[in-house]
Structures are given as C-alpha cells and as structure tokens.
C-alpha cells in the first residue's frame, strides 16, 4: 500500500490512460456532486419550513375567545365570550408547574407622533412574560416590568422600525411618544426575527390600556407557554384540558368550536413532523437513488476498464506479476481515482450550494447546506462500491492465465 514504486506505477497508468481515468473519476464526481446538491436542496426546503417557526417560542398555547355557536345550559347561541383578568389569573394559578410564562394580550391600533413624523402602528398590551413568549430581543433600554403593570405606567417599548420611522437617527430611549393624543415614555427598543411587521409594534402594560380605554378588565387573548419538558403529546392533552376547563367556566357547549379556541404549536409541530417526514423520505429516496446509480456507474466503468486492461495484465503476469500485485495495483488505482474525484465532487457540490445560498428563497429553499458527515459517508460508500466493483473483475483478471489474456489479437 505504501510502496513508492507501486504508486509511481499507478500514477503512470493513470496519467497515460486519461480517458479511463476521466470516465471513472467523472462518474464518481458527478454522483457525489448531484448527491450533495440534491441533499442540500432538500435541507434548504427543510430550513425554509423550519424558519416559519423560529419567530415565536415553540411551546406556546394561544387561548382566544369568540361567540358561541350553540345554545347551552339555558344560554342562547351567539353569546360573546369575553376573557377578563380573573381568567388570566385562573390560568396562571390553576396549572402550577405546567405553565412557564403567561401573558394576556389586548390589541389596538394607534397613530404615533414624534416631532413631525407620524405613523399608524399595532399596539399590544401585554404582561412582562410576553417578552419570553414572543422571543423579543431588547436592543436598548428594558422591557415592561411588574411595576408598569401594577402602577399602570405610561411606559412603552417600541420596535426597531418604529424607532427608525419616527425618530430617524435619534435614539428613542427616554423620549416621549404621542400615541392617539396620549404621551408615553419609550423605555426600550426591541428587535424580532419574525420580520418587519413584528418590528412595527408598540408594547405597553395591559392594565394601562384597560385603565385608559374603557376602564374595564377585558382581555382579547391569553398566551401561555407550557413546560418544555412535557413533550408534544402531553402538550396537546394539556391544551385540551385548558379548553375543557374554560368551556366549563364559561358554560360553553363542549363541542362548541368558536366560543373558546385553544391552539398550540404542538399540533402544528405534529403536522409539521409528518410533512418533514415526507420531505426526509423524498430526500432519502433521491439520495439513495443517486448513490445507487453512481455505484452502478462506477461498477460499469471498472468492469470496462479491467476488460480493456486484460492484455496488459496478462503481459504483467508473464513478466512475473503475482495475482496479489495485479489486484493491488488495480484496486489502489481505483481508490485513488474515486477518492480524488469524490473529493472534487464534494467540494464542487458544496461550492454550488454556497453559490445558490439564499437565491432560491422564493422557491422555499433557504440556506441549502449539507451535513459533511453524510457527504463523507456517501463518498466512502462510492469508493467502497468502486473497490468492490473493481475487485471482482480484478480478481478474475489476476486468475486468468497469461496465455489466455495474450491469445486474442
């Protein structure tokens, strides 16, 4: 294996039989290249699929209310179900250990003005826990805190783009922002990976909003996150439990779909897993298919190559080459070619994926990448296949009697 003369002999054979070298190398390189690109594309598809979930925490349960669709326990249908602060407290305290974070939400819109700039923005009135549920990242200042809730302060936290829109190059921190005629103090600026819309939002204390607008304790929505150790199945049954308890509390028919709606990513994740499984399967089948065609290709080339060399091998045998040295030479040559070509295909494939980058985002292919381990395993598989495909004819060639190999002219 490490015989220098043997390698010299092999390099000579390779460099002087360019077509043969090219064909077998090309087959392997192409196989690995296609395998890499396909796998990368598949992963890109997965990435774009997964990226739609990174915006919010994965373990969130959304609790919304609406109008009843059925008469129940003496109540008419089409009754409005309104969450209040006590419902929020009920959820927070009733499922101790299962609920990680909890926040209500009240939605509003408001016209914000600063100096000469103004713009209409979504306002979310929330509890400080909202930061963790929404994965809000603070750029400067702070998020809302308990004091803001209890003291009903007029402190607000604004999105990065709100600051950019209204304050231009100034820092909004500590400035007074006028929203619908009321002056608020900006205590923090945040960013969010959920896109531009998520950064054009103003957060304020839910109790402040309740005080300022209607002086009630109404809530539009309650978001909670469950203990992440629960797992998908448990999370689904947990959200069903909440739905059941709330329906009892509000005297809503158990099969009423519209009055109280509890949804969670757990169900989405379950669905997603099915789709992901499908994508994985397709990638797997395509990958295996590519590999198999590569193996067949390299097998053909090796058989052809050794057939072509029968006479040369016969001459070598007549000159004193042992069967072992014949097999060794043929196999070492094929290992060398397939390794180099495989590596080349791998590098080209990774390069191609780099070039593609996020250019295909509109086709749902995001950041196509391959796991190096997978590709290396694929390359080694092809090398081994080439070895096996080479070994069988090489052994036959080594066994053939020189006079037979030399006979036909």
């Amino acid at each position: 294996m490490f015989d220098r003369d043997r390698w010299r002999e092999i390099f000579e054979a390779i460099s002087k039989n360019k077509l043969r070298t090219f064909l077998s190398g090309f087959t392997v390189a192409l196989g690995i290249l296609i395998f890499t690109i396909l796998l990368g594309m598949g992963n890109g598809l997965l990435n774009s699929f997964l990226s739609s979930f990174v915006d919010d925490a994965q373990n969130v349960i959304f609790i919304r209310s609406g109008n009843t669709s059925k008469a129940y326990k003496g109540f008419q249908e089409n009754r409005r179900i309104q969450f209040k602060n006590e419902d929020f407290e009920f959820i927070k305290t009733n499922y101790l250990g299962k609920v990680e974070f909890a926040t209500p939400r009240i939605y509003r819109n408001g016209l914000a003005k600063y100096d000469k700039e103004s713009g209409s923005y979504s306002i979310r009135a929330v509890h400080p826990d909202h930061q963790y549920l929404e994965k809000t990242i603070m750029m400067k200042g702070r998020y809302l805190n308990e004091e803001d809730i209890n003291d009903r302060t007029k402190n607000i936290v604004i999105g990065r783009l709100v600051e950019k829109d209204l304050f231009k190059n100034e820092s909004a921190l500590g400035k007074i922002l006028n929203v619908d005629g009321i002056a608020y103090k900006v205590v923090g600026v945040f960013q969010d990976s959920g896109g531009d819309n998520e950064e054009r939002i103003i957060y304020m204390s839910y109790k402040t909003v309740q005080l300022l607008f209607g002086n009630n304790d109404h809530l539009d929505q309650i978001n909670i996150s469950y203990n992440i150790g629960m797992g998908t199945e448990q999370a689904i049954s947990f959200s069903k439990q909440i739905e059941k308890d709330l329906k009892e509390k509000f005297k809503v028919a158990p099969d009423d779909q519209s009055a109280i709606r509890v949804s969670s990513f757990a169900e989405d994740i379950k669905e997603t897993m099915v789709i992901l499984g499908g994508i994985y399967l397709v990638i797997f089948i395509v990958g295996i298919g590519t590999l198999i065609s590569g193996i067949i290709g390299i097998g053909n080339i090796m058989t052809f190559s050794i057939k072509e060399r029968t006479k040369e091998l016969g001459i070598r045998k007549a000159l004193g080459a042992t069967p072992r040295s014949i097999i060794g030479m043929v196999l070492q040559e094929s290992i060398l070619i397939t390794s180099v070509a495989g590596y080349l295909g791998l590098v080209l494939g990774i390069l191609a994926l780099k070039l593609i980058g996020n250019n295909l985002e509109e086709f749902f292919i995001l950041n196509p990448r391959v796991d190096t381990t997978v590709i290396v395993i694929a390359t080694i598989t092809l090398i081994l296949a080439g070895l096996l495909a080479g070994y069988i004819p090489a052994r036959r060639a080594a066994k053939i009697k020189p006079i037979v190999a030399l006979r036909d002219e």
Partner: protein
Amino acid sequence: MIEIKDLHKSYQMGSNSLHVLKGIDFSVKEGELVAIMGSSGSGKSTLLNILGMLDEADNGSYFLDNVPIKGLNETKAAHYRNQFLGFIFQSFNLINYKTALENVALPLYYQRKKRKERTEKALDYLGKVGLSKWATHLPSELSGGQKQRVAIARALAADPKVLLADEPTGALDSTTSYEVMDIIQKINDEGKTILVVTHEEDIANMCKRIVHLKDGVIVEDKKVEQVRASQYV
C-alpha cells in the same frame, strides 16, 4: 537446463477431449538454441506454454534448472516465471502506454529492484538490441522489428535462465526477421539457453537443433549446422 519426461496434455472441447501432447520426452542443455517446429495443431505452442509455466501439464515431469515445476500456485508460478524465464511473443506484447525503456524495466520492477538500477539495466539491454536512441519512444512509434527488439531486451532484462520465443518472426518481413534472429543468435553466443517455436524452415535452420513435433509427439530431433543470420542482414 530443461528436463521433460512423458509429458501429456489434453484439452476439453465440449464433450470431446483433445489430446494435444502425447508423451513428450525432451531435454535441453544450457547454452542450446533449439527450434521447435511443426504445423499448426502439432502441439508446439502448447509445449512452449507448459515450458513457460503459462499452462500446466496433465501428466509427466518437468524440471527447470533442477527445480521441479509441478502443482505451483499462481504466486509461486509468477516468481518462477520472473526468475527463470523470458518471453518473446509473436505479437510483441509491449504495454502500449509505456515507453521502450519502461517496458524493458518492467520485469525488474517485479523483481523488486531499485528504480535507479532498473533504469540502468534497461538502458543497457536496450543498447544491446541497438535501440538506445529509442528509449523514450512509445511502442506505437516503433516499427515491428524495433518492437520485437524491445521485447527481446525486456525478456533479457530479468536475466532469465531460458528464453522462450513463440514465433518471434511471425509478424515480421524476412529482412527484419533475420535482424531479429541475428540478435537471438548473438544472445545465444553469450551462453543463454533459447527455445524458438517456428514453422519457418529458414528460421529453424538458424538454430543449432531442430525438434519436429507432429500430432503431439516428437518425430525428429536433430542437430543442425547453424546458418548465421548476420550474412543476410
């Protein structure tokens, strides 16, 4: 040098068995130049193949330089071929992607000689057949006679005990044939034992002894007055 007793060889042709060699007794001393003659089908090539360990006899004994040649495995046969024998073929059988020099050096590679020594020896033998200038040429750039001379140099390179030539002039015109025979005679003059299979009278007459084969047996074995090829060159 070569001792053969009661050599038999049959080939299976479908359901029929073709008895090619029917008891050959034959010996060659060191330094002899023997022509093996016979029409096609007489068994002369089979005999040469058995002598060259390219084929094995069914029956009989074969000693080469007092070494019994029997029941060899492939590896052993390869070593013996490399040590004892040099082959010259009708169709030259040079490796087409190797230069003349590399072709000549190949048996030395299988003797595990150092690269430098291989090149020196190969150049030396190429010089012996008058092809020093052609060392770096590929076989495709050489004429038939030149190719055969490269093949002879290659056969000599391993310094074998016996040279086996199977119709060495079969693919050459008569002038080139005589050139090749001239070289073979000169090698023999230096003491090398050489067996030449041929069906051409004039070539056979350039050897020192002629063995006639017919239907698998030796019908005639005579010493002849050697005709020197050099007078035709």
